[in-house]
């Protein structure tokens, strides 16, 4: 078996999900290569070489990989795919975007969002918003897999992998990158945060999210939201935790004014400790909470912030 992990990075550092994906790859076998494709990405490649469990880092440094466009990334992965039995990427916005393209070009199925590995060809993945766990088997010659990063803990320690250069594939010319409008925040990223404070429809409006931000700042937490809050226009979509948003599993998840639709629970129920604050004593969020308060959030949240 030869396993390839596609690293998600910003050319300087690896994104959190990459180390989790490497941990999943290491469960499959020892021969793990990591592809770092970027532009002026030597720092990211050096970081990948130090992750335990990595045997080899493949580096491609070219302008067309400065941002991960799906067309270019898929063509690049395809150019080296035949050397591998398994190709893995994190099931983040990054991996979801280009991996199905790789699978289709290889004429193989993709196994999306795996949360468990039973054997080299059998994997566990959540379906129906995580309400059902399916065990699926692939007989395809190459397994193209995206990994639910919260399901695999990064390995401890440090590695020292060899680095090799891989040839770039010409820019597809199909897509032109125009720009990013990234949410600027001093708070940690949702998928990397140790603590998350999330708000739902009960917040009433976007302005009230300041209450959560104050609490998050006390806790060094990230701020998230339910789909209902995104739908109502309180916050932007990158806040969304849930089936179709981000999947998180922090040490502490504080759900405020979130009723707990199954689509939201899908994104956070693997959190270690869940706290729910809701004035509706019947809210389904309480079914997954370790601790809950039936209280008006506009009273409880400032109190909690003050008490910390």
């Amino acid at each position, binding site marked *: 078996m030869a396993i390839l992990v596609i690293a998600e990075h910003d050319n300087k550092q690896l994104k959190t999900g990459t180390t989790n994906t490497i941990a999943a790859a290491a469960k499959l076998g020892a021969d793990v290569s990591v592809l770092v494709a970027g532009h002026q990405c030597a720092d990211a490649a050096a970081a990948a070489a130090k992750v335990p469990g990595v045997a080899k880092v493949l580096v491609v440094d070219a302008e067309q990989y400065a941002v991960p466009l*799906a067309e270019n990334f898929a063509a690049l992965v395809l150019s080296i795919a035949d050397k591998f039995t398994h190709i893995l990427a994190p099931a983040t916005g990054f991996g979801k975007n280009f991996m199905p393209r790789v699978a289709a070009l290889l004429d193989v199925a993709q196994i999306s969002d795996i949360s468990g590995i039973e054997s080299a060809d059998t994997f566990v993945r959540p379906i129906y918003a995580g*309400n059902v766990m399916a065990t699926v088997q692939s007989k395809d010659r190459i397994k193209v897999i995206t990994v639910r990063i919260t399901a695999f803990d990064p390995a401890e320690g440090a590695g020292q992998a060899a680095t090799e250069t891989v040839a770039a594939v010409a820019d597809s010319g199909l897509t032109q990158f125009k720009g990013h*409008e990234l949410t600027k925040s001093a708070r940690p990223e949702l998928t990397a945060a140790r603590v998350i404070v999330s708000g739902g429809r009960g917040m009433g409006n976007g302005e009230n999210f300041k209450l959560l931000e104050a609490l998050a700042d006390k806790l060094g937490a990230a701020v998230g939201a339910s789909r209902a809050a995104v739908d109502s226009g309180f916050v932007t979509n990158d806040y969304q935790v849930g089936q179709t948003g981000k999947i998180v599993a922090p040490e502490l998840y504080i759900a405020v004014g979130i009723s707990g639709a199954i689509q939201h629970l899908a994104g956070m129920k693997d959190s270690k400790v869940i706290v729910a604050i809701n004035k509706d004593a019947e809210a389904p969020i309480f079914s997954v909470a370790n601790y809950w308060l039936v209280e008006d959030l506009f009273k409880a949240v400032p109190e909690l912030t003050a008490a910390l």
Partner: protein
Amino acid sequence: MKVLVGVKRVVDPNVKVRVKADGSGVETANIKMAINPFCEIAVEQAVRMKEAGVVTEIVVVSVGLPQCQETLRTAMAMGADRGILVETDVDVQPLAVAKVMKAIIAKENPQLVIMGKQAVDNDCNQTGQMIAALMGWPQATHISKVEPAGDVANVTREVDGGLESLTIKLPAVVTADLRLNEPRYVTLPNIMKAKKKPLEVIKPDALCVDVAPRLTTLKVVEPAKRGSGVKLADVAELVNKLKNEAKVI
């Protein structure tokens, strides 16, 4: 321009699904079904583009059981012009759907294909990307905006840290995210009108597409339940529990 929209029939997202007693799958008999919410957004987008005069014809396609005709009728009640059902009782997986769509694209020659970003039953998030790959077309997934401009389209994608803007050459495949639009409610007169719109039914064989599944589901189970929690009296007790019992702050 002509737009092709893929729609999937799924278990209504508000229904709590149950695992079949023999663990072979999810119970779908006598369960309320609906158009996949992201497919609904995709249809709405096509209809809005038609209302804006950018799109001339909307063709909706579904792959699956005969009952998918209902899903196509829903899309036509929203404003799609005609429907194609590629009828099969096989468990169609994303790669198979992408191959079917490729065959339909060859016949229909659309300039734009709009898909939902993911179906809420199998949560795969693959089909749109696979269609783009098989066609050798550009793609833009998880979009919150699409504006055709001549032979390109300007799109905004929802990415993990915010938004990304791309210009993609047409023809292309885009997949709809939540904030692209808010789908309209279908009205009774439009439901009646949709019944008269053309709906073609064809078999995968007629398109020379192999729709056999690649992944075998060995078993499905319900996930482990979380232990039951405790209701607390006030904020002071919560702080105490988090500090001294859970030790997370």
